[in-house]
């Protein structure tokens, strides 16, 4: 045991906070992520994490809580993306890119003002790379509350969203407000991503949104199972990452541990690659059972 869990892992309070907050964010990202990947909106999900940086740096300037800055900026960006309103994936990615570029431009300006007025030059790095071990324990209830709300929205949107993702025409025929469901979903992604970007950093928020969901969709084609797999993979990667980062304190080059973000991202990447054989076996089985052609 002590070889795996370095002494103090279970008693250290930063580790507790990292496990609870990181775990909550990981599950939310994984669940929202399945829809995100299905709908091909990974880029939007990634863009929100950067745009929330704009809100974060802006909130330092006007002196509001970073939480509102993060969430506000990305929900605003979601609204703009939806207003531009392109349904074709190519054009949609382009619009996302434009919004992200303008958002990051503003972030540059805000950070410039931040750094000339205060001395918060580390803000960019903190926001970008994040660290689960520096989460303030006071925001844990907020994170858990927001996570529950996001999960609730996802559950509420489950059927209409699934139907409109699989077939827009069918959803229309059933009287589902496709556009509204899409907009509500984009807002949910924005909230979830800004939450995770603030807690665990922008890199991890994209990684947890896309990686576990994509892996889960390689493992199964049933939506409900995909959600379960995705949440499980996401949680496993996060907790294992925290553990490895804690242990790495004693690894070379010493003095301080390796970043959590690195471990979590690497685990997610490895999981994704490891799921490849399963995906190809499923594809073969699918072809064998339907030799008459079609899909």
């Amino acid at each position, binding site marked *: 045991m002590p070889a795996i869990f370095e002494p103090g892992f279970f008693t250290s309070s930063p580790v507790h906070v990292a496990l609870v907050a990181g775990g909550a964010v990981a599950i939310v990202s994984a669940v929202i992520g399945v829809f995100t990947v299905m709908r091909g909106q990974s880029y939007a999900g*990634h863009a929100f994490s950067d745009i929330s940086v704009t809100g974060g740096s802006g909130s330092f300037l006007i002196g509001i809580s970073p939480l509102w800055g993060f969430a506000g900026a990305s929900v605003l960006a979601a609204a703009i993306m939806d207003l531009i309103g392109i349904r074709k994936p190519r054009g949609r990615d382009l619009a996302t890119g434009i919004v992200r570029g303008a958002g990051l*431009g503003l972030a540059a300006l805000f950070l410039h003002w931040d750094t000339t007025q205060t001395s918060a*030059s580390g803000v960019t790095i903190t926001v970008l790379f994040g660290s689960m071990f520096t989460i303030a324990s006071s925001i844990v209830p907020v994170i858990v509350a927001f996570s529950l709300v996001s999960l609730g929205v996802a559950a509420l949107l489950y059927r209409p969203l699934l139907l409109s993702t699989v077939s827009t025409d069918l959803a229309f025929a059933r009287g589902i407000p496709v556009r509204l469901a899409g907009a509500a979903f984009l807002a949910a992604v924005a909230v979830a991503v800004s939450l995770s970007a603030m807690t665990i950093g922008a890199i991890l928020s994209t990684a947890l949104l896309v990686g576990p969901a994509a892996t889960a969709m390689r493992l199964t084609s049933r939506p409900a199972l995909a959600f379960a797999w995705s949440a499980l993979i996401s949680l496993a990667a996060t907790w294992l990452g925290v553990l490895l980062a804690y242990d790495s304190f004693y690894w070379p080059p010493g003095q301080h541990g390796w970043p959590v973000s690195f471990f979590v991202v690497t685990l997610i990447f490895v999981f994704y690659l490891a799921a490849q054989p399963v995906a190809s076996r499923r594809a073969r089985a699918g072809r064998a059972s339907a030799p008459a052609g079609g899909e």
Partner: protein
Amino acid sequence: MTDTWTVATIVAVAAGVVGFFVVLRGSAFVADALPTGAFAGAAGASLIGVSTLTGLTVFSLLGAVSIGLLGRRSRHDVATALTLVMMLGLGALFLSFSTEYAPEIYSLLFGEVLGISVQEVAPTAALAAVSVAAILVMFRPLMLSSLAPEVGAARGVSSQRIEICFLLVIALVTSMALPVVGALLIFSLMIGPPAAARAFTDNPYLAMALSVVVAMVTVWVAIAAAYPTNWPIGFFVGALSAFWYAIGRGWTAWRRTRSVRGAPNRDGGTPAVAC
């Protein structure tokens, strides 16, 4: 100051040319991911003591290959996102090993265009020339595989090979432009001006030329505005790109309403639906 203008203009030309295909192929995410991810290579380079340009080049080329390979078996946006976060994860690791790197990240992300020295002109120009030449050589197959992949495949244009080549060109432009103008700037230049240019003309050559001109105007205005205000140049480029995009979209919408309204008067039939 003249070096700044020269380098920024070179970057604008390369970004305008490559960006035309970025927009045409819908590769905005890739054009975004490679610069963002590549700057981790700069951190790695400073760690093992090689030049920043080497680190950037190696990382962006690796990123391009990884996106290309992963993209064969999975959705393209997933492949891109996973490659991006893996590169950034490595960047976080490199940064944790070296302590004195923090301010440099900021300049790599947002650009340090006003601090360009004369030594940087020659390598930038060389890499830009290579990327523009590569695009011009691949022009026809690229057009074909972007607009009609099936026709391209029938004519023996492998869309996978073209995709890899195109990704490598983006990587090249990235590593050339990143140290001088920042990850954000090169990305905005690669999508804003070409998107606007495509709205105004259907002719590919004209659109490409227009996109180069708009990109050049963007960097010139941005430099001119950043100099007296001392605001980051990335802000002006990001804002201007969004502005060009808005103009392009507005023009498309206006032309569409005009053609729909004008069509019945001209031929008396049902209005043609522009798409």
